[in-house]
């Protein structure tokens, strides 16, 4: 049992390492090759766990080989559009100028039910609202509505708004995150002054966010929330 436990820990660490090595793309929408690798890695990792007769290196080698090969291939995909097309395919347009391309749908084996389901998942229940739709290489559908049916923007309504980056978490569980603080343009001294001004101890803060406009939000450990603006 001790052997199984140690092997489980080793394989757990290895799988975590493999997933991290594949990068953030792996955790989001999957390309076909990435999906294959994910399924393979999860299946291969169970073999040395279930059977102690399999040396751990015989279990580790295919996992590392597949993951590393996938990373190298995805890098080659970046530099070679031709290879990218071979491995990942290319997006296909199924609705253009409001008209459904039946030929492309037939080529993709995309039924009417698949199309309507994909549109419903985007919040579109009326086909007449769709201007343009693309089936991505991951199988998901990206949709652009007709201008008249789309949600108006501030620009459409002639409302001016300043562009700004989203707030960053600058204090997490009482600890000041200096890298995030630098992104806001607020110095540590300035932050401490702000907190003193509002009688807040940083150790009592659960989460604090701030943006470049010095709009701050604090969620305290006792459950209270505070919002204020720095000078």
């Amino acid at each position: 049992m001790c052997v199984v436990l140690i092997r489980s820990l080793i394989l757990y660490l290895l799988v975590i390492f493999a997933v991290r090595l594949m990068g953030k793309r792996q955790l989001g929408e999957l390309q076909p090759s990435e999906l294959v690798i994910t399924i393979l890695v999860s299946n291969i990792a169970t073999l040395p766990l279930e059977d102690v007769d399999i040396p751990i290196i015989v279990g580790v080698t295919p996992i590392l080989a597949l993951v590393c090969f996938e990373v190298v291939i995805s890098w080659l995909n970046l530099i070679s559009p031709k290879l990218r097309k071979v491995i990942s395919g290319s997006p296909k347009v199924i609705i253009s100028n409001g008209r459904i391309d039946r030929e492309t749908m037939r080529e993709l084996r995309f039924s009417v039910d698949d199309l309507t389901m994909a549109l419903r998942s985007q919040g579109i229940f009326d086909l007449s609202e769709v201007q343009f739709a693309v089936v991505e290489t991951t199988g998901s559908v990206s949709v652009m509505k007709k201008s008249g049916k789309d949600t108006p923007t501030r620009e459409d309504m002639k409302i001016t708004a300043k562009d700004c980056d989203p707030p960053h978490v600058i204090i997490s569980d009482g600890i000041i995150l200096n890298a995030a603080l630098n992104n806001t343009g607020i110095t540590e001294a300035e932050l401490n002054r702000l907190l003193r001004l509002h009688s807040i101890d940083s150790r009592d803060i659960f989460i604090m966010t701030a943006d470049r406009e010095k709009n701050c939000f604090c969620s305290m450990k006792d459950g209270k929330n505070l919002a204020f603006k720095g000078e």
Partner: protein
Amino acid sequence: MTRVKISALILASLIGMSIFASVWVNEKCSRLIDCMDRIEQEIQEGKDTTVSARELEKEWTDFRKTASVMIRNDKLTEPERVAGRITLLAQQGSQDLPSAVEELRHMTRQLMHGETPKLTSVL
């Protein structure tokens, strides 16, 4: 780019380790087969095979220790069983010794073939 470099490094290491493992297994198995050839020659010449049998057992034990890290246990279990009998058969001057040696030789050759990256072993 760091991930790509790490991946390329790991791939190169895996290739290197695989080649080393294959070469090592081949070399060790060749030495085992040489020991078996010596025992067979001694049997034919009517000489005492105990020393050679012990040498074979020692070679096999050394091989087994390291090979268990890179070869599945079930591939080593049968040869282990046969190799364990050889010294005893040699000490007793048993008539079963030649067949046991031949059996072990056959299994050793199978191990070599299995670890050598040829088309037949890969497919």
